[in-house]
């Protein structure tokens, strides 16, 4: 069983060159359920990519 926690997720790119920006509407749609859903989704993406790629040195430490 893999441990550890996803602490937070910043979605999307910020192309704006003057201020930091964030996806506000989406972030405020729900609460714990939305967080759990996104967390699970991101978890699955990361593990699939990492497991499928196997190029450790590409990740910078």
């Amino acid at each position, binding site marked *: 069983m893999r441990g550890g*926690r996803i602490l937070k997720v910043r979605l*999307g*790119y*910020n192309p*704006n*060159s003057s201020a*930091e920006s964030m996806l506000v509407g989406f972030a405020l749609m729900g609460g714990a359920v939305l967080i759990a859903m996104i967390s699970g989704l991101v978890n699955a*993406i990361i593990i699939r990519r990492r497991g499928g*790629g196997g190029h450790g040195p590409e990740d910078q430490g």
Partner: protein
Amino acid sequence: MGGTGLKIRAETFGGIIRLDDPPALVYVDQEYLRGLGYPPSPLWGQPEGYLSAPTEVHLGVTAACPLGCRHCYADARPGSFPTLDTESLMRVIDLLAEMQVFHIAFGGGEPFGRPDFLALARHARERDVIPNATTNGLYMTPELARECGVFGQINVSVDGVGPVYEQVRGVDGFAMADRALGLLVEAGCSVGVNCVVSRANFERLGELVSYVASKEVRDVLFLRLKPSGRGAMTYQAERLTPRQNRQLFPLLADLTGRHDVLLRMDCSFVPMVCWHGAEPATMEFFDVRGCAAGESLAGITPEGRVQACSFCGRSLGEVWRLRELWHDSPRLRDFRGWVGQAREPCRSCTYLSLCRGGCHTVAEWVEGDFWAPDPECPFVEAAGRA
């Protein structure tokens, strides 16, 4: 590009993972990274503090812009100005790559006015830093749009539809921006829209969101007018009224929800979001927070000077010292220390650690005091009336 689509940077708490599809920065703890087979980092034994480097850098590549809009934060205008040359900008990008910065937001001025702009973006890609950009669209052609797949996302500035654009910017540029949006969408680029919100367009934002929804753009980013560059000259007359500041978030949430468009707001609007009782845990998880200067963000001017953010005119030093400035600049320490020094009503506010006091550039300009609470925050405004 390619590979596993993951880039990982260690931090004291664990690390940050960059996903490219879907685009996201994911903050995870040490145990999570160990589970992915990531080797322990020397940072993991250190006390938690600020990030080891910015996650994002705003890189101005020119101060020139043929439009000369009324509220330009950078005071950009037609002409020729001192700017880092191609080789120097390539070296800046190399430095950002070495610092493991994840994203660059290119801007100016109008960045596509530089003949080497695509080469700079490609160089960033080659160094595994995602290039993003803001443009007014003036120079966009079908050929150029086809080359813009190199960018993670390009946003076109559109402050209003039709004549509203000119009412806000003082320049008749809507047709130009509309054409650029169309070309970029047609070329398959990831495209968004930037809109500076002011009294001149507040009542017409519905038209803009409806227009954006018809264009297959990824999201629309609403920016607060700042007293920076020429924006300082129009600020008092054009900034939102207290009532508009309260109305803004529900208005935009309703509009983007009805039109199925993703809503983005800039960091300075976070007090206006908090006012409506946003759940702190949800904000924290989705990294919806105020002033990012010195936390996750740094700005670099076309002349190669480092700034806390693009609106803070004060230079912290030369870009070649960015790595040491990130850790040692007294100005960045002020930004990071603002929450600990917060005055009332911020000090007692539930959202202090998330909101971080709103926009310090606005406070410094309006109140003459960097340490003052953002005077346009609805909570601060209400406290002042009490």
